[in-house]
């Protein structure tokens, strides 16, 4: 009877108060009555092996755990909430709350996957309509971190009917459901979900971005993409509701499309709009693409400067075979044949092991350089980040072995072992495909470099004809009064990475007469 009264008061309090606190919690932790003599204390760690069956618990254990949670003692709170969840039937009024607070305690202990597991359970079971929106909010806060996409995005946000959920969580749910339809190739169904998202919200902008990316796939050749689509990407790149990362992705998409359509100046404008956080080194691909664009615009000194950027320690391990090719091309254009030859050979020298792996048809996933490159892109990157995060959390779990007690620790240990195994499987499956793409890229670059090496060899031994003279140099832009030059002495500064310029004179000879 007391329990029923407690639960009724709890529900009333929850309905009235913004905080999800079961207000019937005891006044102070000290007042929380210990388990009656003879009754087992499920929360106390036991040195004995965990019993097969969970021990019975006093319903007051929930109040005790709740008090501990409110005093930020998440370790002890998690142990008690777990004991409660394990022992009580699912029909218990506090059962979903216990799951919810167990999830939140684990999230606060940086065991986000375990936390997400319990929050997702609350949403899937839907035992208490008051807890579900809070659990969804909790899950939404985790989506920017590496997380289990299947468990959170697909099985919760995309699969469940969450029509009653409003606000940002509801918007995100509609976005995920639309995204799932887009991936399945059904844009019409996707739009039904996207249309439910209020205009001007973050989710609406993300939905627009997802739609644009999907539409891109309709074009077999990037040169066929219409201006309207490019403009849409450009507009999204300036949509401040999107995260900086997504805005940059949109701008880079616009830049790439303009580049393919040979609108190099437009592409350069888009690359220039890509904003980096202060002192952030940025992405190697951004620099390399900008270097190619500038090369095509005839700005070879600026292009060479960007290639210098790619030698910075932040990018030394990047997989950029194109870099050597572009460097060789610039040197060749300025008739610096020896450096051109050396730049061309540098590619085959640096990637000798990877090229050998490809040639001998060995397992590409054993080549560390290519694996690192493949793990840095797209869905493989996400899978790798989640796999790495799980491993780290699994290791951190050991710190709580004592305070969690055998049962919770053993349970979480099994949870993490299974999750790590699954994350590894997903990562390896994606890696296999990504590493092939990287290998293709390397082989293409190596072929072009060999051709370049041959052409440079011919030029190197070309006979200089009588009357030849040195060609006029490509003029380097003079220093603007607003500008300041810091000569490079081998020390890379992050704030200078986009500003290097190389002064290089042409050694070409023209006007030959027989």
């Amino acid at each position, binding site marked *: 009877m007391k329990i029923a009264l407690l639960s009724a008061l709890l529900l009333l309090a929850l309905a009235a108060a913004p905080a999800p606190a079961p207000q019937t919690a005891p006044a102070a932790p000290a007042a929380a009555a210990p388990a009656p003599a003879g009754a087992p204390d499920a929360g106390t760690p036991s040195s004995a092996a965990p019993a097969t069956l969970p021990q019975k618990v006093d319903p007051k254990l929930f109040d005790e755990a709740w008090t501990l949670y409110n005093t930020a003692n998440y370790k002890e709170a998690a142990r008690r909430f777990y004991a409660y969840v394990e022992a009580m039937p699912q029909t218990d009024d506090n059962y979903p709350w216990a799951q919810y607070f167990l999830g939140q305690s684990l999230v606060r202990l940086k065991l986000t996957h375990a936390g997400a597991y319990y929050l997702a359970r609350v949403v899937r079971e839907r035992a208490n309509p008051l807890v579900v929106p809070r659990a969804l909010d909790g899950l939404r806060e985790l989506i920017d971190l590496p997380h289990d996409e299947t468990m959170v995005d697909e099985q919760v946000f995309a699969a469940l009917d969450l029509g009653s959920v409003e606000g940002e969580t509801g918007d995100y749910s509609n976005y995920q459901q639309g995204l799932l339809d887009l991936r399945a190739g059904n844009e019409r169904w996707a739009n039904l979900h996207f249309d439910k998202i209020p205009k001007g919200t973050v989710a609406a902008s993300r939905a627009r971005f997802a739609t644009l990316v999907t539409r891109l796939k309709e074009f077999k050749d990037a040169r066929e993409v219409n201006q309207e689509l490019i403009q849409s990407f450009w507009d999204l790149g300036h949509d401040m509701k999107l995260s900086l990362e997504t805005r940059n992705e949109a701008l880079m998409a616009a830049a790439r499309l303009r580049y393919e359509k040979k609108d190099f100046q437009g592409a350069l404008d888009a690359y220039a709009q890509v904003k980096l956080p202060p*002192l952030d080194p940025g992405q190697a691909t951004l620099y390399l693409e900008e270097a190619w664009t500038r090369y095509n615009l005839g700005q070879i000194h600026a292009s*060479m*400067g960007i290639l*210098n950027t790619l030698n910075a320690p932040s990018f030394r391990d990047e997989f950029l075979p194109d870099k050597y090719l572009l460097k060789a091309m610039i*040197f060749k254009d300025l008739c*610096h044949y*020896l*450096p051109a030859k*050396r730049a061309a050979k540098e590619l085959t020298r640096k990637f000798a092991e990877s090229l050998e792996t490809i040639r001998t048809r060995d397992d590409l996933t054993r080549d560390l350089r290519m694996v690192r490159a493949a793990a840095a892109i797209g869905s493989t990157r996400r899978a790798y980040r989640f796999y790495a995060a799980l491993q780290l959390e699994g290791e951190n779990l050991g710190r709580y072995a004592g305070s969690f007690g055998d049962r919770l620790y053993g349970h979480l240990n099994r949870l993490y072992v299974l999750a790590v195994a699954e994350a590894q499987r997903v990562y390896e499956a994606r890696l296999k495909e990504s590493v092939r793409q990287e290998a293709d890229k390397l082989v293409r670059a190596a072929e072009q470099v060999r051709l370049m090496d041959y052409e440079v060899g011919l030029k190197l031994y070309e006979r200089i004809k009588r009357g030849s003279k040195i060609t006029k140099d490509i003029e380097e832009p003079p*220093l*603007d*009064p*607003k*500008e*300041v*030059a*810091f*000569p*490079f002495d081998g020390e890379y*500064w992050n*704030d*200078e990475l986009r*500003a*290097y*310029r*190389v*002064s*290089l*004179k042409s050694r070409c000879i023209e006007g030959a007469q027989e």
Partner: protein
Amino acid sequence: MKEWIVSAALLLPAVALAQAEELENPGRVAAVQERVYRMNQELSLGIGTLPLDAFYKGFGPQVTYTFHFSDTFAWQIGRGMYSYPATTSLRQQLERDFGVLPTAFEVVQWMAGSDLVWSPIYGKTSFLNQQVLHFEAYASIGGTLIKTNSQFRPALDLGVGVRVFSSKFVSYRLDVTNNVCIPLKFPVVNVLNVPTIVLSVALNFGSPE
């Protein structure tokens, strides 16, 4: 003749080495950036000291107004400093034990002047590998009128200073200046050096464009 041959023999490998280096690694690299901080009209408020005189130390506020013609050249149109004298124990001893009159000590009360400022050094430095601080260093030359407790004295001043930029509108200056008073009663040479050290906050107004 022999010396010429020896010199040539010693120099030629160095020249050849330089050429080989140029062939191997051609080009020079520089980071060309837009100057982040540019000054236009500057009002600075500071606090300074006159630390040199053995008989008193001066402390007081300083106000300046500067117009920057370019990033390297400026005219500090007006500079005014008030000095509150704090007598030293030496002066107190002289007055107390040896009956020296207080009027015997020449004490600076205030000074005003104008200077030309040349700032050839603009740079940046890293703070704890987390933040980039921009600074400039400059030299100044100008004239000062010094009011002492007994007379007005014209002076020529030479100074150096450093400015650390905090934002486009706020910077901090440290100025070290020596005012050399020009002797007026020839042939009596009565050179008075009045060095000042001033730490100030400078507010930048207007656009340099």
